[in-house]
């Protein structure tokens, strides 16, 4: 019995010490008394030094939490148990959250740095007039390839290059209905937002002729495969391609000229916010030219912040693979919210294609 009591005391003392240590550490990173904001972002999607800098400048303590998918984030915000002040959903999720009344309208007068954003990225169809959202990073869907593993001459500036007979069993696709069917539509010269059964049928039939070339339909696992020269060609997002290229200099990325997807991750203020002032201050801080440049350098995705781009390495911002010029952007489209009925149809056609594999 004595031993049990002694052990219990030891455990409780250890708990008290741990609690004290974690509490004081939390307090030291708390710069002042101007309140607290909770930021909910994708994992590894911000330069942590900037959070410290924001805390020092404003005295607002930042609680930083991460999520791994738009759907996981939506669930947490709908559930309402946590007071998130700033979140970073993708464009289709902004539309959905706004429809469900989960977002607070932004107050542009509190975000003067909004002027730094390239007007091309404002007033987009998923959030007309930027009532609820401001773009954080953006990118495209395209083809990452390893020139050493594909026949010479293939540059993938057209989707048709994927159908090259020399690529038998060499192409990896991203596992997403919207992405793959959209690519099929683009490859037959159509918009990736069509609501037309006949066109979807044609696109799917065209995709089925790609089957002999397809090695796999996978998700994030593609990164190590490309980096280690184990895969030759993959359909992937520009951000992921940038990560791969940072580790394997041989890789190339191309956005086919027929058109492709343009995606955005955006700052929003969810309904759960308890510190709306602080949330605006944080968004405004992140849109600062220097901060934006430092963050884009760290994260490696394309920034919509024109003022930040001026401060960044010339070589990076003129890289047309990740900062396509106006001409190239012309054929890029944002995924529109098609509604559940048409989303279901896209999924069905995607399933039909996968069954043919």
């Amino acid at each position, binding site marked *: *019995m004595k*031993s*049990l009591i002694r*052990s*219990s005391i030891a*455990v*409780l003392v*250890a*708990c008290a010490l*741990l*609690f004290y*240590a*974690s509490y004081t*550490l*939390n307090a*030291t*990173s708390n710069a002042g008394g101007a309140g607290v904001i*909770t930021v909910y972002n*994708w*994992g*590894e*999607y911000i330069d*942590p030094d900037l959070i410290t800098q924001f805390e020092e400048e404003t005295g607002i303590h930042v*609680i*930083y*939490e*991460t*999520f*791994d998918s738009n759907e996981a984030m939506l669930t*947490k915000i709908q*559930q*309402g*148990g*946590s*007071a998130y002040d700033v979140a970073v959903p993708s464009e289709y999720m902004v539309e959905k959250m706004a429809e469900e009344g989960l977002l607070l309208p932004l107050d542009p007068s509190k975000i003067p740095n909004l002027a730094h954003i390239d007007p091309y990225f404002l007033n987009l169809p998923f959030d007309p007039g930027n009532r609820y959202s401001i773009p954080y990073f953006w990118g495209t869907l395209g083809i990452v390839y390893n020139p050493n593993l594909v026949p010479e001459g293939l540059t993938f500036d057209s989707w048709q290059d994927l159908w090259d007979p020399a690529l038998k069993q060499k192409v990896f696709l991203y596992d997403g209905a919207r992405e793959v069917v959209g690519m099929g539509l683009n490859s037959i010269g159509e918009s990736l937002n069509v609501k037309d059964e006949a066109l979807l049928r044609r696109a799917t039939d065209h995709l089925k002729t790609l089957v002999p070339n397809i090695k796999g339909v996978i998700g*994030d696992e593609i*990164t*190590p495969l490309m*980096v*280690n020269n184990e895969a030759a060609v993959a359909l992937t997002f520009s951000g992921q391609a940038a*990560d791969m290229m940072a*580790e394997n200099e041989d890789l190339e990325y191309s956005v086919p000229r027929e058109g492709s997807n343009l995606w955005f991750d955006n700052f929003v203020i969810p309904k759960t916010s308890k510190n709306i002032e602080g949330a605006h201050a944080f968004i405004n801080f992140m849109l600062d030219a220097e901060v934006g440049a430092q963050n884009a350098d760290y994260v490696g995705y394309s920034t919509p912040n024109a003022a930040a781009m001026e401060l960044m390495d010339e070589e990076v911002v003129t890289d047309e693979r990740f900062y396509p010029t106006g001409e190239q952007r012309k054929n890029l489209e944002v995924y529109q919210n098609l509604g559940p009925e048409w989303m279901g149809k896209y999924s069905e056609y995607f399933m039909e294609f996968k069954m043919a594999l």
Partner: protein
Amino acid sequence: MTSKLSLGGKAYLALMFLILYAPIFYLMLYSFNSGDSMSGFESFTLSHYADVFADTRLIVILLDTVLVALLSGFIATVIGTLGAIGIVSVRNRWWRHTLLSLNNVLIVSPDVVIGASFLILFTLIGAKLGFASVLLSHAAFSVPIVVLMVLPKLLEMKTSLIDAALDLGASRRDVLTRVVLPMIQPGIYAGFFMAITYSLDDFAVTFFVTGNGFSTLSVEIYSMARTGITLTVNAISTLVFLATLIVVAGYYWVTNRARAAEAEVRA
């Protein structure tokens, strides 16, 4: 015992341990890699560990994870031990089996179901998600495990011991503190350490009930791995593995001491 194993048996055993441990050691090796990925070992460095310790948020999460494990393990051990004693003292066989089955159902039911039900419960009563919700759910899913670890010790205890103690004038309280608890002590420690390991590696339940900036290591690593495993993850995992080794060593130390003390009393 090992001396009785045939050569083939030893080889088989060695192969099994190799397969089980190789991935862990592979991961630990790369936590010392100066390169940025697991695609090739460049040279030895401790910089990933420096990254871990420089990141206050990560350290806070690490401390919180251990705190939740210890405290939930403690709460679960108290409740579970009392529960086991309660189950054994039920005379009706049918009742006892029912109680035990209800206990076991909780162990085998999927974590996702338990996590989702906790989330619904906390939402329903309007509780804020965070430290308290994680602690309570960890304690809750550890209780059945403690019960299962303590029960065999109680069953192997002779009821005549209790009768003898009562005959010799011990109060019921004395019976509990001086006869029953010392006898089942190894089971209690085993339950406590099992509860700690369950809490440390739980992902599914925790994922549902974290919020408001509170997070545990498994949930955090999952979010980090989404954008590709960085070697920081290897470094934390190595630290956690070492911590687990310490827990296991602690378990053996405590049980050996308990056994030695027991032997002394008997001698």
